[in-house]
């Protein structure tokens, strides 16, 4: 099964599935019927949701529910896994992200990513931030860009005197903010964050959360998190995923509910969501 065969016609599906969409330009990502297979087995199936501009969208759910897989299909990181096959529709500002003319390298320049474990390059702090702009060859004023990115990531004051030192000399929380600075140095439009605080202590977590809220005025953010309080604190909309074995006989992730974060956490429409957020499972 290839992506092209199973992908529905963008126009008809988009219009039919989300009649409540408020103005096309507000929607950064429009997902419909998104499934990702690893080899034979579907890791996640039939996901449909819209990510809106200047909002934080949280993907929550128990382990193995496919939330990271969905996140990684938004900047075509799944392309790096040979056996991963994406089907269904992923539209980015109305453009089919998996269309034949789309270059995954360009996609990743527009859509930055921050990973679970802080993963700075084994280079200096400066070179970490400068790597993206350098390879994109947009380095008119590299020093200025590095400073601006570090300032935006609220790291500048801590590292301004040691830009040439190894990034590994920083604490875990500082490293993660460096990774955020590195991601925004290429001036992306969206930031994808895959459990960015799971390796950090509560204080570092708080700083990253404050940073996310601040960054959403310039970026649209999609965050995967295990931490429900985090989703409740920072996000505008929340998608709750769970694992369903009944559909295929394998552990397949499905989207249970997607709504305003306030509604998901106070008055979810699906009892499974309520069970999860009240701690009855997961």
């Amino acid at each position: 099964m290839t992506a092209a065969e199973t992908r529905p016609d963008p126009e008809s599906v988009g219009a039919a599935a989300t009649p409540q969409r408020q103005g096309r330009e507000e929607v950064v990502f429009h997902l419909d019927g998104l499934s990702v297979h690893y080899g034979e087995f579907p890791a996640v199936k039939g996901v449909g949701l819209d990510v809106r501009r200047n909002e934080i969208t949280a993907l929550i759910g128990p382990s193995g529910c496919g939330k990271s897989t969905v996140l990684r299909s938004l900047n075509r990181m799944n392309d790096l896994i040979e056996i991963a096959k994406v089907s269904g529709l992923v539209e980015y500002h109305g453009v089919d992200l998996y269309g034949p003319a789309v270059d995954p390298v360009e996609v990743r320049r527009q859509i930055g990513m921050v990973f679970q474990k802080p993963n700075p390059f084994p280079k200096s702090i400066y070179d970490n931030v400068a790597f993206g702009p350098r390879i994109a060859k947009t380095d008119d004023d590299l020093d200025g860009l590095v400073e601006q990115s570090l300032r935006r990531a609220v790291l500048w004051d801590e590292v301004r005197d040691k830009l040439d030192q190894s990034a590994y000399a920083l604490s875990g929380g500082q490293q993660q903010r460096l990774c955020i600075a590195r991601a925004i140095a290429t001036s992306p439009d969206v930031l994808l964050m895959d459990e960015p605080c799971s390796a950090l202590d509560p204080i570092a977590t708080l700083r990253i959360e404050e940073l996310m809220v601040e960054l959403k005025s310039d970026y649209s953010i999609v965050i995967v998190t295990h931490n429900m309080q985090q989703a409740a604190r920072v996000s505008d909309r929340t998608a709750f995923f769970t694992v369903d074995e009944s559909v295929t006989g394998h552990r397949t992730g499905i989207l249970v509910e997607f709504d305003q974060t306030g509604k998901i956490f106070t008055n979810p429409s699906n009892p499974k969501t309520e069970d999860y957020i009240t701690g009855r499972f997961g």
Partner: protein
Amino acid sequence: MTADTTTPTRIAVAAKLQGRRVGWGESAFQLATLIGLLLSLGVLVALLADIVAGAWSVVTTRGADFVSTPISLSADTAGVLNGIIGSVLLTIVVAVVAIPLGIAAAVYLEEYAADTRPTRFIQTNVRNLAGVPSIVYGLLGLGVIVRLVTALGAGGSANGRNIIAGGLTLAVLVLPIVVITTSEALRAVPAGIREAAYGVGATQWEVTRHQVLPAALPAILTGTVLTLARAFGETAPLLLVGAATGFFATGGQGLMEQLSGTYTALPVVVYSWSRQPDGAFRDELAPAAILVLLVLLLAANAAAIIIRNRSERKW
């Protein structure tokens, strides 16, 4: 909480926590491992002592003269200069040929090749090649490389059994080791570094060139220096591709003549001297040549360790 209720608990806990005496089985095992260590060390020390004892008179009477004079039929004036020159030139040929080829092959296997049955077949067999006895490579060198070198017009006065052929043979011999050590170095680069580089929009080439290779470089360099040391000490294949005579290589010629003429190498000098009927060659000069070889190999290993420590990275 009163003492009455805690005391029995305390006694029971104290009894549970009491150390057991070491059983005789454990002591015997410890002793056996110690004997294993001492035996292997002992053999090494005896070997070194024997070599140093044999070489002592040469080291004390000849000193630096021994490494700076050419080979001679007279035991009083014979030195290992030709051997050192030959070995260094061979090692340079090996480095120039095997390192780029081996690193390129490993980068292709690890970074570019799809994980398919043929790829895995090749990876397995590169490992097998590294285990092939070196004399087999000598036969390959004699049968194929010497002829190839001659056919390409680089046979020179040695009819193809020259440093170029010898170096190429050693290069083929160590190539699988370069591929394996480089592959392992590349595999040890954390996946997070690759993901991060792809994440900011790097192409596969940029990821490999700017992140993966630099991160793997210390390990690649260390492995490469050790590989060259292996080539430096190799004897058997060289005996087949022309170094067996061991007496004709001379300095002072043009580089091409040196590379295409007859030659010798340090381990071959040792081999050749230890078979001489003259006792001075067999019992004094050969150990002294071994000592020179060992010092050079130890220097190479030390260089590898220094490179590794200097550029060691933690992640």
